[in-house]
């Protein structure tokens, strides 16, 4: 072993984020001391970000199979069958820590990374979505963070030419020191042209394509696997810099090469860069790998193997080609003005061997790096113990609203329910000319050249998850299911992005475990498997004073299919004089509602319970009503309850409504499994088949509920006021 004069002191081990016990494992795995290159490789491969060491045990309990699932978790993204020999490929991923440190580049490279996960598998990306959580708007950093993140997401997605069609943005003080940026990409591929990552064929060339390797992002995965200390700003150099132009070229070049039969395996270089891509490819292929570090295209002179292996420079891919295909492949990448270099070969050693200047600078057995990486069964609180730890106050007395219309205006102007137009207009939602709907319950994009369309939604209600992780986990899945049904799509599968705080705290681990249990139960009940995902832990910050954990935020990205896009449903009222009904049961459950929080400043009580049988039944009923043309508008009831949902339907169309008098509870509770529908004729909904309650009629230029009215103009102004006053005021 050469070039390892550096001595590995306990300090060096700690700087690499490895515990003393983990370092013992390294010594055991190698049977000797590692050199610095090897230590660096263990450090990133065993980081939470790459190894899922705290969550793996519990992720295994999620349902991942259905007849239409082609590939579940474990590859770069999940793959589902969408008929006609086509597949949808999708995944959601976090870029939280980098986005807090450098919001524009952090968010931009988050989009870039998730796009690569999808086109790596052979899909042309057709839609982006996101799920964003920010702190309280008055926080001194928050405006800067929101502006930077939104500009970064737009800057990358717009340039690459993938429309951003769905997303959600919430504000809560729990994210003051640790915002969440979760990005999702959906792509479409031919089902018989899916590309996987398993490196096979001893002697096959390993090829590096894309951008050159620089010194940016070194140790990004390790950084993303720790709490923020006081020195978050000092970590800026660990944030990568994105180049969406190169990404666009890389997409076109990869898809052009994929149309030939040259590729054995392909993997993007994401977190932990060349290290994790090469380790995963060799591991998945049950092979070994030998790389010549002198062949790696470098942006700067004098880069060491350590830096090359740990760099997170963006827009790079690693491929295994069939022998003899190198010249043809190289010509394609040269045409797109991208780097192309054969940097090694597949071996049968089950070792990762790196050579530099003719000497071996790293020789690690692959088992300990990936399959046998540390796995922790971290202690967690039982549901009862968690409840007493969380100390959520019981709901207690809730006063009746004195004026439902006035409360509604305040809700519409609140940050969480405000119009997000300021954000969404910064994203090109139309490029590709296949976007059929944005701003409704789900984004909808046509599958190019077909009658089919994909519906996409992102959902999670973190305050529900905090109050009751199990029900909150169920609710995130149920809401995604509902949003897809509301546009007339058959829900197919989900991706998740599990954002939690420090898993070494039993109460945080309890949030993770119980939320996953709830998600798993919901996925099973709704036939809605999880096909890909990402875990982001240690989302807490000392930078804002005190170890403040985020709310548990298992964000969901749901995908559904509409067989004939001309049947797609939207939420705006269509005409005056139509009946309005609520489908689904209403329960007395104002706990954790937006109304309680916004009007009374309280986050008390249990979140609404989720009856999965109701969710399934009502979703199926709504889809049938849409398919049969019996309803003219559909909107799911979620944040803000019935009154807010009605206001959104009115604002989407400019048509008002007159609604029967109702209690505060009926107006604002967030009972699940409910939809608002409109229909033309009294007989269109059959009471024997549809559990509905007629509540009013469309028309006029105000939303009138009992004796209380809010004009559409005042609702529109309230809805627009938050971002207008905050960003332009």
């Amino acid at each position, binding site marked *: 072993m050469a070039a390892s004069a550096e001595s590995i002191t306990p300090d060096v081990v700690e700087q690499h984020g490895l515990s003393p016990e983990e370092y013992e494992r390294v010594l055991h795995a190698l049977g000797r001391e590692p050199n610095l290159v090897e230590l660096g490789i263990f450090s990133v491969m065993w980081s939470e970000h790459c190894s899922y060491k705290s969550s793996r045990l519990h992720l295994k309990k999620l349902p991942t199979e259905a007849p239409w699932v082609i590939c579940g978790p474990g590859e770069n993204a999940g793959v589902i069958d969408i008929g006609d020999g086509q597949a949808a490929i999708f995944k959601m991923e976090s870029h939280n820590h980098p986005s807090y440190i450098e919001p524009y580049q952090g968010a931009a490279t988050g989009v870039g990374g998730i796009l690569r996960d999808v086109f790596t598998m052979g899909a042309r990306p057709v839609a982006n979505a996101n799920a964003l959580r920010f702190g309280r708007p008055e926080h001194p950093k928050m405006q800067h963070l929101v502006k930077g993140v939104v500009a970064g997401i737009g*800057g990358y997605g717009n340039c690459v*030419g993938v429309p951003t069609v769905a997303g959600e943005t919430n504000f809560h003080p729990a994210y003051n020191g640790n915002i969440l940026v979760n990005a999702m990409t959906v792509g479409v591929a031919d089902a018989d042209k899916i590309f996987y990552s398993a490196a096979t064929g001893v002697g096959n060339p390993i090829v590096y394509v894309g951008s050159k390797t620089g010194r940016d992002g070194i140790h990004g995965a390790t950084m993303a696997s720790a709490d923020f200390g006081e020195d978050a700003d000092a970590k800026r150099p660990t944030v990568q810099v994105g180049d969406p*132009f190169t990404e666009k070229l890389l997409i076109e070049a990869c898809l052009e090469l994929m149309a030939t039969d040259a590729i054995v395996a392909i993997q993007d270089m994401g977190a932990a860069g060349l290290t994790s891509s090469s380790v995963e490819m060799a591991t998945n292929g049950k092979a070994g790998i030998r790389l010549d570090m002198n062949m790696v295209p470098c942006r700067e002179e004098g880069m060491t193997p350590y830096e090359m292996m740990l760099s997170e420079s963006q827009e790079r891919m690693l491929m295994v080609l069939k022998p003899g295909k190198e010249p043809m492949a190289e010509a394609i990448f040269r045409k797109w003005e991208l780097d192309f270099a054969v940097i090694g070969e597949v071996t049968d050693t089950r070792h990762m061997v790196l050579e530099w200047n003719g000497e071996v600078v790293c020789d690690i057995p692959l088992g300990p790096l990936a399959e046998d990486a540390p796995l922790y069964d971290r202690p967690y609180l039982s549901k009862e113990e968690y409840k007493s730890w969380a100390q959520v106050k019981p709901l207690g007395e809730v006063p009746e609203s004195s004026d439902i219309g006035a409360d509604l205006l305040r809700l519409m102007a609140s940050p969480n329910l405000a119009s997000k137009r300021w954000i969404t*207009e*910064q994203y090109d*939602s139309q490029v*590709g000319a*296949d976007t059929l709907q944005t701003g409704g319950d789900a984004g909808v994009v046509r599958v190019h050249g077909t009658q089919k369309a994909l519906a996409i939604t992102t959902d999670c209600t973190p305050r529900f998850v905090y109050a009751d992780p199990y029900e909150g986990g169920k609710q995130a899945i149920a809401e995604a299911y509902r949003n897809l049904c509301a546009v007339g799509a058959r829900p197919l599968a989900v991706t998740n992005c599990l954002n939690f705080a420090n898993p070494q705290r039993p109460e945080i681990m309890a949030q993770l475990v119980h939320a996953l249990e709830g998600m798993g139960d919901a996925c099973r009940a709704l036939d809605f498997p999880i096909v890909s995902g990402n875990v982001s832990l240690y989302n807490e910050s000392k930078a804002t004073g005190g170890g403040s954990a985020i709310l548990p935020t298992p964000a969901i990205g749901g995908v559904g299919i509409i067989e004939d896009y001309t049947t797609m449903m939207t939420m705006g009222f269509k005409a005056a004089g139509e009946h309005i009904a609520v489908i689904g049961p209403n329960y007395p459950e104002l706990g954790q509602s937006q109304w309680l929080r916004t009007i009374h400043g309280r986050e008390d009580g249990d979140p609404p319970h989720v009856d999965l049988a109701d969710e399934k039944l009502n979703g199926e009923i709504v889809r049938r009503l849409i398919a049969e043309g019996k309803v003219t508008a559909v909107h799911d009831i979620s944040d803000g309850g019935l009154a807010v949902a009605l206001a959104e339907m009115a604002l989407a169309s400019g048509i008002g409504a007159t609604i029967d008098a109702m209690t505060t509870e009926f107006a604002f509770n967030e009972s699940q499994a409910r939809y608002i529908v409109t229909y033309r004729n009294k007989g269109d909904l059959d009471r024997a088949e549809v559990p509905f309650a007629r509540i009013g009629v469309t028309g006029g230029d105000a939303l009138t509920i009992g004796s209380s009215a809010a004009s559409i103009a005042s609702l529109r102004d309230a809805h627009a006021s938050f971002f207008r006053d905050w960003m332009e005021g």
Partner: protein
Amino acid sequence: MGFRSAVVTFPGSNCDRDMAVALEIASGTPALRVWHGDAELPERLDFIAIPGGFSYGDYLRSGAMAARSPIMRAIVEAAGRGVPVLGVCNGFQVLTESGLLPGALMRNASQNFICRTVSLKVENSQTLFTSQYDQGEEIQVPVAHHDGNFFADTETLDRLEGEGRVAFRYLDAVNGSQRDIAGIINGAGNVLGMMPHPERAVEPAHAGTDGRKLFASAVARLVDA
């Protein structure tokens, strides 16, 4: 004989496919695709389209690098011969950078990227790109750009207005453009540059179909000729 149109692809173009689809819908003939590095255009073209996107990443000024590519020399030469040339969004930026159209497109006044459907007024329905519209017709077409703020000196603006070379005008302020100009034509009337995307408004599935008449105008001129 079919309508022979060509769509140019620069590295970073991302509306090239959408433009080709719109041209095929309007003409019934697939558009030819041209690579930026080509020195020559296909023969006997009836129409050349420069699509939206971020050519060369727009890392210098928007459209500046593309304006100096080999294919643009051929397009400038073809435009000189009277071949109709349409530049949309980044294509408009390329046309101003190449000197085929006057003025420049600066960063939006809001500093933000803007994606929304806007109302336009057809200011000149006598051009080969607008003959199917009524004079003064109001149409709805999406915009999606960061650098759409049209700027020219007063003398140039007055000349454009006086010669009827403002093809489209925004009905509401969108991006800070001088005199709300959304699209202009050259002196000979065969080059149109516009920031809004007519190719995103041609199918029933789109939010509107007001872009159709633009392509139909170009096709009708050929059929009539």
